[in-house]
């Protein structure tokens, strides 16, 4: 306790130096946490998106892989088609436990018949679906009826309206699924019956009507049997079907993952450089401070302070500055990231979902611990040097 009091008094007494260290730690810790949070947030977002899809394999028309990834990742609507007969072909492949078709549609851009512009719509089959149905069973206790939809977390009914109007057709929003940070958050899920009703309405309300082909689907969601090798099943799908490409769930968003990996290495390199520079800077500030206080430390030694007290007091000062700087820096960075998460995700063109509270607290603690370790290491050499100084010489300086 006395050591903390002593260190605190010295921190207060050397205001400029303490402020410089505090700001350096604050900046570095904030930067480190922000970059880690962006990367972790993107990873968390991808995992949440994949979990929401619930499929082990996604079968898409050949050449449409990137379109599907962009639609699911960023919510950019797309129109891709393949014959519905493919569904049975895939279902018959050994190792496939269940299949479910999905149809991708989109509303018009800036049309007066639609309350929302360019909405990505996913039509699912209630009989086989495992993407939305588990959520519906848990939250609604039933399947969607005609005219009912479920939206991603960012889908909402416009103010002063009771319905979500698409192609002049009124849709009742029955709920919003949990955020994933991906395009799913901006997606509308509905049954084929509802999609056909919207298409019917579009014939009279839109210049370009919505087309829903009964014999066409966009993707096939595949669940493999327990114990089956996902990769082997995917390979079999590739061999047994024509014009279709299976994407294993972990490989989904592969293009994005490659980009993210590059970004991650970039962030990592910048972080290491910033961290190293901060460590040198803090070490230099402490060295200067130690030199300035040589005589004070010699006086302390003369009035009875052991060498280890000198070291401990300087390290305690360092730790106090590190803790306060890191907490403030991380808090500011977290708050900024939370407030501007959408703008950051959109400018970096990557999904982002703020990590769960336990994960965030883990990152927070790790950031503070890293700051303490760094600053204490930076202060250690000057502290040892000043504790070993020749007292007689120091007192004459």
């Amino acid at each position, binding site marked *: 306790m*006395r050591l903390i009091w*002593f260190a605190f*008094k*010295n921190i*207060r*007494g*050397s205001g400029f130096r303490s402020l410089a260290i505090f700001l350096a730690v604050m900046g570095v810790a904030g930067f480190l946490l922000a970059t880690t949070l962006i990367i972790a947030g993107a990873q968390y977002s991808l995992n949440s998106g994949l979990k929401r899809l619930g499929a082990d394999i996604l079968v898409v028309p050949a050449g449409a892989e990137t379109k599907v990834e962009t639609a699911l990742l960023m919510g950019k609507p797309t129109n891709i088609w393949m014959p519905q007969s493919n569904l049975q072909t895939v279902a018959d492949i050994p190792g496939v436990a269940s299949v479910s078709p999905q149809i991708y549609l989109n509303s018009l851009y800036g049309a007066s018949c639609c309350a929302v512009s360019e909405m990505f719509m996913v039509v699912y089959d209630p009989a086989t679906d495992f993407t939305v149905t588990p959520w519906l069973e848990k939250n609604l206790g039933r399947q969607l009826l005609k005219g009912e939809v479920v939206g991603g977390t960012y889908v909402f009914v416009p103010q002063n309206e009771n319905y979500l109007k698409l192609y002049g057709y009124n849709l009742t929003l029955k709920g919003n699924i949990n955020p994933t940070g991906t395009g799913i958050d901006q997606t509308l899920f509905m049954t084929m019956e509802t999609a056909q009703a919207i298409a019917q309405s579009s014939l009279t309300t839109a210049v370009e009507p919505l087309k829903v082909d009964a014999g066409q689907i966009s993707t096939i969601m595949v669940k493999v049997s327990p114990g089956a090798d996902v990769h082997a099943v995917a390979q079999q799908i590739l061999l047994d079907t024509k014009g279709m490409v299976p994407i294993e769930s972990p490989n989904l968003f592969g293009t994005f993952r490659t980009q993210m990996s590059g970004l991650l290495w970039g962030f990592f390199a910048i972080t290491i450089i910033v961290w190293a520079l901060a460590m040198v800077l803090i070490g230099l500030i402490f060295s200067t401070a130690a030199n300035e206080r040589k*005589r*004070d430390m010699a*006086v*302390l*030694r*003369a*009035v*009875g*302070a*052991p*060498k280890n*007290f000198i070291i401990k007091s300087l390290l305690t000062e360092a730790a106090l500055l590190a803790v306060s700087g890191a907490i403030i820096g991380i808090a500011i960075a977290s708050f900024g990231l939370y407030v501007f998460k959408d703008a950051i995700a959109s400018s970096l063109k990557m999904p982002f979902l703020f990590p769960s509270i336990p994960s965030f607290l883990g990152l927070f603690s790790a950031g503070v611990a890293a700051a303490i370790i760094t600053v204490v290491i930076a202060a250690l050499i000057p502290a040892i040097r000043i504790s070993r100084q*020749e*007292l*007689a010489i120091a*007192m*004459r300086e």
Partner: protein
Amino acid sequence: MLSFQNVSKDFQLDSRTTITPVKDVTLDINPGEFVIISGRSGTGKTTLLNLAAGLVKPTSGKVTWNNLDLGEMTDSQLSELRTKKIGFVFQFPSLLPSFTVLENITLPKMFDTKDRTRDSFGKALETLTIMGLAGKKDVYPKQLSAGEQKRVVISRSLINNPEIIIADEPTSDLDNNTEKEVMGLLQKINSGGVTILMVTHSLQLLPFATRAFEMEGGNLKEITRIAST
């Protein structure tokens, strides 16, 4: 009590130059004495005090404290000795600028690990009152005059009830009145049974001593005749 036996101290300034500020000094200081060592600047007086407190180790010879060789003591043993037995009055301003007068005085208490029960602030205030500075307990050193700072340093040297006070030129930067005041205080402390070992370049202060020495070129010579004040 404190004994120097053929003590010499060398300092190597660079690879070619070595100086010996203290040469073959032998001196015994007994409890209750007021010993003053005078001499011009650079004659080794401060080094002798540093040897007495174990702040530097002799190159040859022995410095003993109640027959314990300071050269053989560990850092923590020396720290304990300085905390409990020795009070320091430095030549230079030695109050820590970030601490108030009261906090500066209690600093040596921080290192007395075996005596944390006593009211250190109470004791410090008591000492400050004796020094006539009770009203300035909460001010910072830079707000004090040179004489007041010196009195605070003396207060700090007394906080742990030391057996000896080692004073290095305690009146060097003071005016005549303040010098007399400080010397009066040291004399008063000495009359209470505390041994004083002091160095000064001022021959006028020698009459305060019970024994006086002159240091020249690292050698110590007792002054047998001291003119009275």
